[in-house]
C-alpha cells in the first residue's frame, strides 16, 4: 500500500476569535477522489488553503506528499496542482499561450496537447481567454492546474455557477483525471457531485468533520429509501403501518428500510380504497439526506452551545 497523499491530524486554525478549523483529522489516499463537503463558511476553503500552503495552521500535523505544506517547498509545488475558486488568467492570451506559460514554471510539465485533450479544449487552442464561455474558462483553470503534471490536484468548487451541461462535462474531466492516476481533493456544496465523483467524502460543519467515508456508506446510515406520494383529500386515514410525515410540498413521506414491502402494502391499500396516489415516487437514501441531517444537527448544537451571534458568525471573507 502506497503512502497516503495527504495526512492531517489535529488541524486547527483561528482567525482572531473565530475558530475556522477545530481539530480535524483527514487522510486522502493516493489515487482517490476525495470531496470536502459543507455549507459556506464551514471551513472547507481554510482547510484546503492550509493543505495548499497558503495559510499557516495554528496547530496539528500536516503531510502533503510527504512534505509540510507550511514550509512552501518548491519540490512540493512541482508535484501539486491548484485550481482556485475564482479564475485569474490573462484575458488577452490564447488557451495555448496560457498553458505554455504555466508549463514553463515546472521542471517536468505535461505536453500541451495532452492537457488540452484532458480538459476538452483542443478546439479552443487558439482562442483568447476572454472569448471562452464560463465553463471553458474554468476548464482552462484546470488546464493550468495540470500544467506541471501534478500527482495531486486541488479543485476548490470546480463547478459552482455551472449550467447542468457544463457540470456534466466537468465531471467527465475529473473522471479523466482519476483515470490518469491523479489524486484529487475537491470541495463542493453539490451532493450529487460528491456522490458521482468522490471515492470518499468528509462533511465539514463549523470547522469540524462530522462524518467521513464512502458516499454510499454515509448514505446507508440513513433509512434505505423514501416513498413519497400525494394523498387525495377524500382518502381515509392511513393505517398505522403506513404512517408517514407530511413533507414540505404537501406530499406524504415515509422513510423505510424495506421499500418493496412498504410499496406493496401501500399500493394494496390504495387499490382497496380505489384511490389513485399521485406523484408516487421511491427514492434511494442519498448523501444529501445524510448531509442535511448532519448539518442541521450541528447547527442546532452550535446554537445551543454558543450564544446566537456566534452560531451565525461567518468566517471572515472567504477569498482572503
Amino acid at each position, binding site marked *: 500500500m502506497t503512502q497516503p497523499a495527504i495526512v492531517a491530524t489535529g488541524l486547527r486554525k483561528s482567525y482572531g476569535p473565530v475558530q475556522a478549523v477545530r481539530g480535524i483529522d483527514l487522510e486522502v489516499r493516493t489515487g482517490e477522489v476525495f470531496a470536502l463537503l459543507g455549507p459556506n463558511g464551514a471551513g472547507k476553503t481554510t482547510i484546503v488553503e492550509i493543505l*495548499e*500552503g*497558503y495559510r499557516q495552521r495554528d496547530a496539528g500535523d500536516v503531510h502533503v506528499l510527504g512534505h509540510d505544506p507550511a514550509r512552501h517547498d*518548491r519540490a512540493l*509545488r*512541482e508535484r*501539486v496542482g*491548484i485550481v*482556485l475558486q*475564482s*479564475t*485569474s*488568467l*490573462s484575458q*488577452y*492570451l490564447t488557451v495555448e*499561450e496560457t498553458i505554455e*506559460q*504555466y508549463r*514553463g*514554471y*515546472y*521542471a517536468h510539465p505535461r505536453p500541451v496537447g495532452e492537457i488540452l485533450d484532458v480538459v476538452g479544449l483542443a478546439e479552443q487552442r487558439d482562442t483568447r481567454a476572454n472569448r471562452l464561455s464560463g465553463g471553458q474558462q474554468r476548464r482552462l483553470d484546470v488546464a*493550468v492546474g495540470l*500544467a*506541471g503534471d501534478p500527482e495531486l490536484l486541488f479543485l476548490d468548487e470546480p463547478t459552482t455557477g455551472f449550467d447542468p451541461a457544463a457540470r456534466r462535462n466537468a465531471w467527465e474531466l475529473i473522471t479523466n483525471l482519476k483515470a490518469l492516476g491523479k489524486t484529487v481533493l475537491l470541495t463542493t456544496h453539490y451532493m450529487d457531485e460528491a456522490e458521482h465523483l468522490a471515492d470518499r467524502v468528509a462533511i465539514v460543519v463549523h470547522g469540524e468533520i462530522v462524518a467521513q467515508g464512502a458516499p454510499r456508506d454515509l448514505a446507508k446510515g440513513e433509512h434505505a429509501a423514501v416513498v413519497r406520494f400525494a394523498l387525495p383529500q377524500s382518502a381515509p386515514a392511513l393505517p398505522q403501518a403506513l404512517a408517514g410525515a407530511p413533507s414540505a410540498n404537501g406530499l406524504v413521506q415515509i422513510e423505510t428500510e424495506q421499500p418493496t414491502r412498504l410499496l406493496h402494502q401501500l399500493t394494496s391499500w390504495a387499490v382497496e380504497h380505489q384511490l389513485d396516489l399521485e406523484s408516487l415516487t421511491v427514492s434511494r437514501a442519498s448523501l444529501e439526506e445524510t448531509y442535511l441531517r448532519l448539518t442541521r444537527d450541528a447547527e442546532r448544537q452550535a446554537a445551543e452551545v454558543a450564544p446566537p451571534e456566534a452560531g451565525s458568525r461567518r468566517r471572515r471573507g472567504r*477569498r*482572503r
Partner: protein
Amino acid sequence: MNDALLVVRQVRYENRWFWRNPPAAFFTFVFPLIFLVLFNVIFGNNEIEVPGGTTNESTFYVPAIAALSVVTACYTNIAMTLCYTRDDGVLKRIRGTPLPIWAYVTARVLHAVLVGMLLVVIVVAFGRAFYDVTIPSNTMAAFVITVIVGSAAFSMLGLAVTTVIPNAEAAPAIVNFTILPLFFISDVFINLEDPPAWLDTLANVFPVVHFSKAMQTAFNPFESGAGFEPAHLAVIAAWGVAAFIVAIRRFSWEPRT
C-alpha cells in the same frame, strides 16, 4: 530549473501580456508625448536660465518629461498592475506554482524598466526631431546612469506603495495622490524659478525633484563636465533602498481587505 532563465522567460510573458492590450500599451507611450507637446505649446518659447547660459523651455521639458516617463512607467505602472494582479488572484496562483514569487515580481520590474527606457528614448528622439533639442554627448553616461538609478528606485517605490494600498479599486487614487502633486512641485510639469522656501524644502524631501534635477544637469547643453549629480543620485538611491526594504518585509500576495 535555473532561476535567471525563469526570470528572463517571465519578462517575455510580461511583454506579451503588455502588448496584447493595445489600448493600454498605446497610451503608455502616447501619454508622455502629450505632456511634452502641451508644455511646449504653452511655455516652449520662454527663455530660461540654466547653469552656463540661456536656452528655451524645450531644453527643460525634454529631460523633465523623460523623468516623468520613468516615474510613470516604473512607479505608477508597477503599483497599479501589481494591485490588479493581486486582486485577481494571479499572485496567489503564481504562489502555488514552483515559480518563486520574487522571480515573478522581478520580471514585472524589469519589464517596467525596459518600457521606461524605451519611453525615454522616444521622448528624447521626439525632442530632437521637433524641438531642435541638442543631445549632449559629454554627459551621455550621466544621463544613462541617472535613468537607471531612477528606474530602479521608482520601481522599488512602486512595489512599496502596494503595501499600503488595500485593493485595486483604491490603487489609482492612492498612486495619483502620491505622485501628481510631486510632478507640480518638482520641476517636472513646471520649471519653478522662485518657489516659496517651504515648498522647495517639501519637494526636496521626496525623490522626484532630485531625479528631475539630475536629469536636467545631464541634459544641459552648457554642461562642460560629465554631468553627474552625486548628491541627487544618493537621495534617489536612498529612497529606493528604503522602499526595497519595505517591499521585502511587507509584500503581500493577496489583497489587504
